């Protein structure tokens, strides 16, 4: 076994650090969009909104049932062939759209379960004082569902951060893409990829710290 090139590894750190904002940016934007979309999907499913409900079912089924990589290729390489106007779609946007749709399908199911986990009496009390369904969802049901869903949603966010590495296959030079380029230049594949692995690991661990605070905040109402 040859010795590890620690100097190279240390030198790689500042190079890769420059790509952290892009990776976290793609992950955060995708997560925010996925949160909004998944809440809408979940509400449609729970309230069984006529006409739209079957389509949300199909949407969730498709985006859960096919690999993320296939979806990304479909958006980036496939769709522009059908719709030439989409040729202008850059790799970052295509990745964000793909990640959003993919993860919103998973998250919608978690949020749906969390909504159904909110006690029926909460719905009845909201209706009894004359709240409309939208007001009830926004003010009473979703805030309580958020507490139930938070651990699972943070899990999806972790998965999402790591999945941004697939954007590299769309030609985006993000953390993974940059590492690949460095490794191809130095031929030090182990050193390069172990450093980037630690990068992802640290980002996810930092998120776990935030998770504790988030859960404490959401749980404020039920602490004695």
């Amino acid at each position, binding site marked *: 076994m040859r010795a590890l090139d620690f100097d190279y590894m240390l030198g790689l750190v500042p190079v890769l650090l420059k790509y952290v904002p892009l990776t976290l940016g793609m992950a955060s934007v995708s997560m925010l969009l996925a949160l909004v979309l998944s809440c809408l999907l979940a509400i449609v499913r729970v309230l069984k909104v006529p006409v739209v409900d079957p389509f949300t079912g199909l949407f969730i089924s498709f985006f859960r049932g096919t690999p993320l990589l296939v979806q990304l290729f479909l958006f980036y390489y496939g769709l522009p062939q059908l719709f030439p106007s989409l040729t202008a779609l850059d790799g970052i946007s295509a990745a964000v759209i793909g990640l959003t749709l993919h993860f919103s399908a998973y998250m919608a199911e978690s949020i749906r379960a969390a909504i159904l986990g909110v006690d029926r009496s909460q719905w*009845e009390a909201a*209706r009894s*004082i004359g*709240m409309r369904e939208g*007001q009830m969802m926004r003010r009473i049901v979703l805030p*309580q569902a958020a507490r139930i869903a938070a651990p699972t949603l943070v899990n999806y966010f972790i998965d999402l951060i790591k999945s941004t590495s697939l954007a590299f296959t769309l030609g985006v030079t993000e953390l993974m893409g940059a590492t690949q380029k460095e490794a191809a230049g130095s031929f030090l594949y182990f050193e390069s990829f172990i450093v980037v692995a630690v990068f992802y690991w640290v980002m996810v661990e930092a998120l776990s710290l935030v998770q504790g605070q988030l859960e404490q905040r959401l749980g404020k109402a039920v602490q004695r």
Partner: protein
Amino acid sequence: MIRVRGLTKSYNGHKVLDGIDLDIEKGERIVIIGPSGTGKSTLLRTLNFLEQPDAGTIGFDDLNIDVAKAKVKEIQQLRLHTAFVFQNYALFANKTARENIAEGLHVVRGVSKSEALARADAILGEIGLADRADAYPSALSGGQQQRVGIGRAMASHVDLMLVDEPTSALDPEWVEEVLQLMGKVAAAHQTMLIVTHEMRFARDIADRVLFMEGGRIVEQGPPEKIFTAPADPRLQQFLRKVLPD
């Protein structure tokens, strides 16, 4: 005056409400008694569409609803005429005591947030919980939660307060404080329809007592008559079971 005509409700072919006719005068306090499973709670719940009734009409001064054809907007309006006190309190778990009372005023009735909170504080004073204004329901005793539940119903000054077994879920130690508050609300001439198993309370508070069985109002009258000279044999039998000798 509130007029209910021919209200029916079935579950899986079983008639839970079998043609209820009921007039309620302004300020009247009506207590419904009867064995379990005779439709008492269902009657309350259909009156503000927590359960959708099958047929009949519900009328308030300016609102007359054919329940079978009720539109979303009519149901909304009907709910603004009524307030519900739940057996299990059903306070909003993500809102403080003060917010629970202010919520409907602010969100549904368009009262400004500061005004709604100020009114909530006044009500918290009336129900003796001024010092618990910022507590979440999980930090309140059952009796305190139910008092907030009653406070929430008081806040909107509705035409009809629907009260569904307000003490059934309470530990015995909290029953008295809730009944006292109910008495206070009744004394303020709030029109009320109350389902309860507390016969002494029913006797003290009611202008009229309804005895329900099999989804119908079998007998009704002032409490003196119902409790001392019941006519229907089913009521006589029921009272023998629930009243101490």
